[in-house]
C-alpha cells in the first residue's frame, strides 16, 4: 500500500520524533510512504491572522493538486492541524462547486489544476481502518504490558468531520494502544482542548486547559499521555515547567506519540525508530516498567 506523507512544518521541527516514528511504523507494517514533492504549509490554526479563508484554502488546494499530479494516493497527514486544514478544503471542494471553480481559477495562476477526489487521511484512520487492530497486534514483538497510558486525541484529530472516529468520544487510538498491550486508563479529557494554536501566545489563559489534561492523566495513574497531534504534544510537554510555575503543580508527565510506542512495540530501536530520545520529559523510566 502506497500513501503520500504530508509531514507539514511541524514534523520537520518540533514534531520530528513524530515523523521518525511514523516512518518506522510504516516500514514495519509494509506501507510505502512518499512525500508530496514541494508541498507548502497548510496555514495551521493561526492562518486567519494574515490570510483570508480563501487564501488558506488555496494553500491546501495546491497540496491537493500536487498530490493528484504526483499519483493521487491517499494523503496521510499525521499533524492534526494539517489534517484538518487539508480535509476541510477537500470536503468543501467536493460540496461547493462555486468554491471548486474559484480554487481552480486561483490554482491556474501557478499552472495547477485540481479535479477533486484525493483522500486526506489521519494516521489513526489508516492504522485503524486500512490495517486494523488485529494486524497491528500481530506485529507486536515487545508488548507494552503494564504500561498505563492516557489516550489523548485533542481536538482536530477527529473534529469537525468525524471522518473515522467519534467527534465527542473517540476510541480508535485506545484500541490501537490496547493492541500494543498497554492499559488505557479512562480519560474524560480525551477530546478536550489543550489550547492549541493560541497556547503559545495566550499561555496564562490556556494554562488551565493544559493543566486539566495533565491533572486528570496523573489522577488516573497514567504513566504517560499518548497523543497523535504534534501541537498537543508540544503544548503539554515542553511547557510543563512553566505550567507548574503558573498552576503551582509538579507535573512530570511524559507525552509521547502513539507511533513512538508502536515503533517500540514492533521491536524498533528506542532512538532510531521510536525517537524517544527526542522527548523532553523522558519516557525512558516509565517504559522500563513494561517488557518493551
Amino acid at each position: 500500500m502506497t500513501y503520500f506523507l504530508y509531514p507539514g512544518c511541524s514534523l520537520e521541527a518540533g514534531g520530528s520524533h513524530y515523523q521518525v516514528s511514523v516512518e518506522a511504523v510504516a516500514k514495519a507494517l509494509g506501507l510505502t510512504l512518499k512525500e508530496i514533492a514541494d508541498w507548502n504549509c497548510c496555514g495551521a490554526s493561526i492562518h486567519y491572522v494574515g490570510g483570508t479563508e480563501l487564501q488558506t484554502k488555496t494553500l491546501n488546494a495546491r497540496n491537493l493538486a500536487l498530490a493528484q499530479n504526483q499519483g493521487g494516493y491517499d494523503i496521510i497527514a499525521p499533524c492534526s492541524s494539517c489534517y484538518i486544514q487539508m480535509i476541510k478544503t477537500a470536503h468543501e471542494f467536493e460540496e461547493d462547486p462555486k468554491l471548486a471553480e474559484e480554487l481552480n481559477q486561483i490554482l491556474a495562476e501557478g499552472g495547477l489544476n485540481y479535479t477533486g477526489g484525493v483522500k486526506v487521511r489521519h494516521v489513526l484512520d489508516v492504522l485503524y481502518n486500512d490495517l486494523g487492530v488485529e494486524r497491528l497486534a500481530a506485529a507486536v514483538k515487545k508488548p507494552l504490558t503494564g504500561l498505563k497510558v492516557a489516550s489523548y486525541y485533542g481536538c482536530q484529530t477527529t473534529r469537525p468531520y468525524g471522518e473515522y472516529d467519534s467527534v465527542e468520544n473517540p476510541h480508535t487510538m485506545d484500541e490501537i494502544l490496547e493492541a500494543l498491550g498497554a492499559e488505557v486508563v479512562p480519560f474524560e479529557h480525551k477530546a478536550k482542548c489543550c489550547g492549541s494554536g493560541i497556547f503559545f501566545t495566550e499561555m496564562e489563559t490556556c494554562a488551565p486547559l493544559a493543566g486539566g489534561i495533565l491533572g486528570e492523566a496523573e489522577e488516573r495513574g497514567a504513566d504517560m499521555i499518548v497523543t497523535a497531534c504534534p501541537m498537543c504534544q508540544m503544548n503539554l510537554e515542553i511547557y510543563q515547567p512553566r505550567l507548574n510555575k503558573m498552576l503551582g503543580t509538579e507535573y512530570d508527565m511524559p507525552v509521547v506519540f502513539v507511533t513512538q510506542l508502536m515503533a517500540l512495540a514492533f521491536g524498533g530501536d528506542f532512538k532510531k525508530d521510536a525517537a524517544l530520545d527526542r522527548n523532553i520529559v523522558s519516557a525512558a523510566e516509565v517504559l522500563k516498567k513494561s517488557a518493551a
Partner: protein
Amino acid sequence: MATKAYDKSFREEVYQNVDSGEDVKLCMQCGVCGITCPLRGEMTHGPRQLWSLIRAGKREEVMNSPDIMLCTSCYSCKVRCPRGVKVIDVMHGLAHYALEQGIVPRKETAKFGKAFWDSIYKTGRVDETEVPMRYTMMAGPIHGIFNMLEMMDIGRALLAHKRMKFKIGPGLPPSKKIRGMKGLKKMLDKAKSMSPGKEG
C-alpha cells in the same frame, strides 16, 4: 439599563465582508457554542452574544471584543451547532477583518500570527525556529532580546532533542523557500483579490 438601538448597516457589512460572515444569519441563539467553548470563562460575550451584537449593529463592541481572537480552533462549537453555523470560521473571519482595519483584538496572537503568515507568504512553509524568533523580536530590539532570552530554556531544550534547527537569529541562516514559491505567491494574491469584501 442601556438601550441599544438596532442598526442594520453593520450586519450587512459582516455578511458581505467577513469570511463565513453570512453564517451569522443562521444562528438561533441556543447557546450551545457558548457553553461548549473551552475558554467560555475567559470570554465577555462568547459567540452567541457576538452574533446578536452583529445583528443589532454594535460595530464597536464586536470589533473591539478580544473574544473574536480567543478561539483555540478546537471545533467543538462547529460540531455541536444545531444550525451548522461554522462558528470558528466566523470567529476567524471576524478577527481577520478587525486586524485588516487596524484593530488588534489580542496583541500577542496577532504578532505571532503575522510572523507565521509572513513566513508562509515568503517561503511557502513555516520555519518553527524562524517564526518564534521573529515573533519575539517584534517587541522591539531591547524587549525582543529579553523575550528571546526568556524563551531560551525552551529553545535549548528543543535544540538538544533534535526538534529545532540552529539559528543565531532571525534569518540567520535564512529559511529555505519551496520551489514553486513564485506560483504560490501569485495564487495567494489572486485568492486575496477574490476574498469577500475584496472583489473588484
